[in-house]
């Protein structure tokens, strides 16, 4: 486990950018599919846009919170898990990376929802 994360924690900048890019795209696609789906289910474009954007914003806000939380409470969490939680494979770097990916999905979703709303709004 330890050697595993050591390998992962030093990816090149390009790998990192690729990962973020893929996450952004994933979020955008998910939102882009979700908005028309909600509209097709009989809701207004306004409603679809608002809810999908809000879900994406929830993910985005959550991961920013998780990212900064990992930084400022990282040591506490590590100690907590060591003495009480009984698990030790949590690491600040890992957590920040995960939150970065998740946040990108959220951000992509927010952009995707906005763009799709414009398109769907033009069609409907």
């Amino acid at each position, binding site marked *: 486990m330890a050697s595993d994360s050591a390998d992962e924690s030093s990816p090149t900048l390009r790998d990192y950018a690729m990962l973020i890019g893929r996450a952004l795209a994933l979020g955008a696609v998910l939102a882009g599919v979700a908005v028309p789906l909600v509209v097709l289910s009989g809701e207004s474009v306004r409603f679809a846009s608002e809810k999908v954007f809000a879900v994406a914003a929830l993910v985005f806000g*959550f991961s920013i919170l998780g990212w900064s939380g990992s930084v400022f409470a990282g040591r506490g969490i590590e100690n907590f898990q060591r003495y009480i939680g009984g698990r030790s494979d949590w690491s600040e770097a890992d957590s920040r*990376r*995960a939150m970065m990916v998740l946040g990108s999905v959220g951000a992509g979703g927010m952009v995707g929802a906005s763009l799709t709303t414009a398109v769907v709004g033009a069609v409907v």
Partner: protein
Amino acid sequence: MSTQTETEDVGDRGVVERLRASPFLSQLLSNRLAVAGLAIIFGMLAIGLYARLFIDLQSVTTSQIGTNPNVAPPSWLGPKEAQVVTDYGTWAYPFGTDIQSRDIFRRVLYGAWIALKFGTITVAASTVLGVGLGIIAAYYGDITDNVIMRTMDVLLAFPSLLLALALVAIFGSGLWKVVIALTLVYTPRFARVVRGAALKVLEDEYIEATEALGAKDPRVLVRHILPNCLAPITVQSTLNFGLAIIDIAALSFLGFGSEAGTPEWGLMLANGVELGLLTGDWWWSFFPGLFLAITVLGFNLLGDGMRDALDPRMRETVD
């Protein structure tokens, strides 16, 4: 077909070996505290079932003014006010009555049913979600694992009551919505336990053997992993049960759970605190809280004993 039976054989042997290696049940039963916990749980279950079957919900929900004395202290105590004079010294209202003249004793009994019912649903739902997420994380590994588990960790870092409040703000109030909110709040705990156990199973050779036999299907994996996670999942569910009962009642206490009149412990406590506390009418809040605390204690005693029986080393090193 032959592959199927072979994989099952291998899986079964794993379970049997594990059971033999840690005599879980006999260890558990030799722990007096755990047995006491088990007895409490069965007692509460019996009370809950009795209440569900023999107490008319209507009679403990709607106002009984006129039928019963109003705000009477427990009848065995003696008269507090002239109006209860006919009943004192009897067992007519062992826990007293509230401002709607409802019999608190029967309300508390019915509360056992509500607490156990909604507790069970909450715990079961978060177990299912957690098992799913944990197995997915362990199976796919890498970035999927990282994102799922770190998300679970962040969720775990939120104070559970505040997170539940945020979710209730999204879903709206009501007992069922509270159940949904708490299910999401508890899922990370199960995901964590299951992922850990699943990883162990994946490292074991018999999964490799299974894969070699051409059974890379995730469904087969679930069949292998689940029996091996059963013990940690059970411990987690038991410990979580107490928490679920506390949190459901807490949200009801704050006014987001059960509807007015429901014989639910949290709501009864809220009424007792709001209307009975400053006038010293202690029985409103005392008895529902007592039953709640005893039930939760039962689950905590049992869960704690289970944890020990499962992994006696844990206690020395961690706790």
